[in-house]
């Protein structure tokens, strides 16, 4: 009887331990990973919505180098597919903060979706997306041709701008073939599209197709010329409900996040190794992509989140989205910002 009770008790403990982790919800207090040497503390579980794109590196750094744990958070970086999915994850409380593409953010704002905040912008990586054609030397020669585009994303604005700069209209002068990520490469390789536009790492694959000619990148757009930023940079956003519940807690999280951004800027070689390990890619392939990155720290945010940079850029990008029929109106995006969370 005694042995049976002991075994039963042990079994219950094992089951409880196995179920316990799954049952934990964001916001629960849990003992998470702590930096080496630091005393274990009760950490608050927070979900970060991301993907495998290198722009999510500060979240990975914050987790691995202990910035979040030092601030009292056990951050879990979860993949949430495309940027629109990440906006939804913030709105419905599946994630507390996320990095996502500006186009998805502006479109959600244009739909008056107010359940998230726009906190800041952690990086710009100009030159990481480009228009590549096969056997065509000039953008002007794309008239009547087919371009493979990941529509409703930053590259959609980039190709619109590049064509406009060459006197072409994306809606009437070329045929747009819709695809995403690797499909863009396949469409161009198979000859169904004579040109394609996509970001890294697919941009490199596009350039590797025999006869490929780079016709332009996001650095050749009027947006870059005016605001020194891309057509749709990565944005840091947060769940409104989570922030409003305890703004001081949110402030602590974003200070830790931007500490991780600073680490990214100050440790380029270590960052390459960390990213390569995280995305299971050769360091040699990560290095050239990362060379384009400029990490924007907490101190930079005053300029970044102003008319001189992103506010000016977001206004122009929103107007383009409305012209393309992808957004119903230009949103008053300043209403989604929380400068107090980044203040000293």
């Amino acid at each position, binding site marked *: 009887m005694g042995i049976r009770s002991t075994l039963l008790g042990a079994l219950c403990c094992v089951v409880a331990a196995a179920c316990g982790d799954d049952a934990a919800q964001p916001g629960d207090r849990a003992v998470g990973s702590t930096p080496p040497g630091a005393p274990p503390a009760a950490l608050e579980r927070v979900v970060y919505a991301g993907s495998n794109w290198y722009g999510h590196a500060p979240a990975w750094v914050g987790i691995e180098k202990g910035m979040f744990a030092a601030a009292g958070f056990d951050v879990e970086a979860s993949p949430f597919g*495309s940027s*629109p999915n990440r*906006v*939804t994850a913030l709105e419905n409380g599946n994630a507390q903060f996320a990095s996502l593409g500006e186009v*998805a953010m502006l*479109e*959600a704002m244009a*739909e*008056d*979706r*107010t359940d998230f*905040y726009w906190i800041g912008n952690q990086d*710009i990586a100009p030159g990481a997306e480009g228009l590549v054609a096969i056997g065509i030397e000039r953008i002007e020669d794309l008239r009547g041709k087919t371009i493979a585009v990941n*529509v*409703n994303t930053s590259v959609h604005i980039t190709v619109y701008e590049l064509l406009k700069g060459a006197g072409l*209209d*994306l*809606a*009437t002068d070329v045929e*747009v*073939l*819709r*695809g*995403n990520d690797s*499909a863009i490469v*396949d*469409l161009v390789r*198979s*000859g*169904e599209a004579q040109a394609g536009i996509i970001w890294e790492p697919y941009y490199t694959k596009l350039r590797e197709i025999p006869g490929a000619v780079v016709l332009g990148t996001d650095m050749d757009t009027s947006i870059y010329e005016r605001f*020194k*930023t891309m057509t749709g940079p990565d944005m840091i956003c947060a769940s409104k409900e989570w922030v*409003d519940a305890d703004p001081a807690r949110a402030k602590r999280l974003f200070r830790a996040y931007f500490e991780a951004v600073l680490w990214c800027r100050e440790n380029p070689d270590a960052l390459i190794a960390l990213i390569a390990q995280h995305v299971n890619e050769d360091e040699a392939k990560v290095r050239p992509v990362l060379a384009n990155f*400029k990490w*924007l720290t907490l*101190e*930079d945010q*005053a*300029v*970044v989140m*102003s008319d*001189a*940079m992103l506010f000016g850029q977001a206004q122009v990008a929103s107007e383009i989205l409305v012209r*393309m*029929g*992808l*957004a119903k109106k230009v949103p008053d995006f*300043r*209403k989604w*910002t*929380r*400068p*107090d*969370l980044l*203040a000293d």
Partner: protein
Amino acid sequence: MQAFPRTLPPRRRLLLGVAGVLGVIVLWWALTFPFFTETVTRHERVATGEIVTRTHPVTGETLQMPVFDTVERTESRHRALVNPPALDTPGNTLRDAWTLLTVERPGRPTLLTHMLRSTLRILLGFLVSASVAVPLGIAMGLFPTLRALVSPIISFLRPLPSISWVPLAMIWLGAGELQKLAIVFMGMFAAALIYTIEATIKVPPDLIKAARNLGASDRQLLWRVLLPAALPNIVSGLKVVVAIGWTCVISAEIVGTQEGLGALIWLSKETADTSAVLVGMACISGIVLLLDLATTRIERHLLPYLFLRERGS
């Protein structure tokens, strides 16, 4: 009065159908009508009056930047049980449908173009799959050896959802019309084949025996007995296959096209335009209904004896 009547008078059936549809619309309206008022906190960005010196992170130039803080304000807003983008009101959805139908924008196909493109893809896929599946199905129904040979392959293909063919079809055929035709074909083919085999096997053996006793040749048995007897079930099966075709075309239109109801639905989902998604779905149902009416007419033409029997019963 019968406890479980098998049919209803046509007028009553129509009235009940209309009542059912109206019921759904009223429920939709009730869910999306802003009955409630809630107080929400808004945060307004205000300049503190302080100016700080900052360096532009890209150009390196020195800038004098105003410092901003956040002021909290509360305001009331009207809310429904379900709010956009989860679900818009019936009125807004109808307005969006009208815009999609009538407003032509360069590079943005109208609703009619979307509907025509998807319907053409389905009809073409249906023609190709039926023209392969029906003869093969009849042959498999007639010859057990062929059935034993092909059935394991069909058993493997049958459970595969059409969306699972998208990656392979893209690698093998690109993302053009051929890929879309292939996905629609693969989705429809297995179902059409199985319906045809079943219809052929289920031809009453007495009919075959009687024809043989009356001295029918193999050719006469096939054309005068087997096919007419199997055709009603084959046609019923093919009507179901046309509806299956819609799940296939929506998968096929994920990539490589701007035109088609699938493209409209996928793109609208990305922009959280629920109204357009609902309009796309309603169009699919509408087209399936029209195709169903059209196939019933063809059925009446091909199999008039079935309808005579129906009238007579």
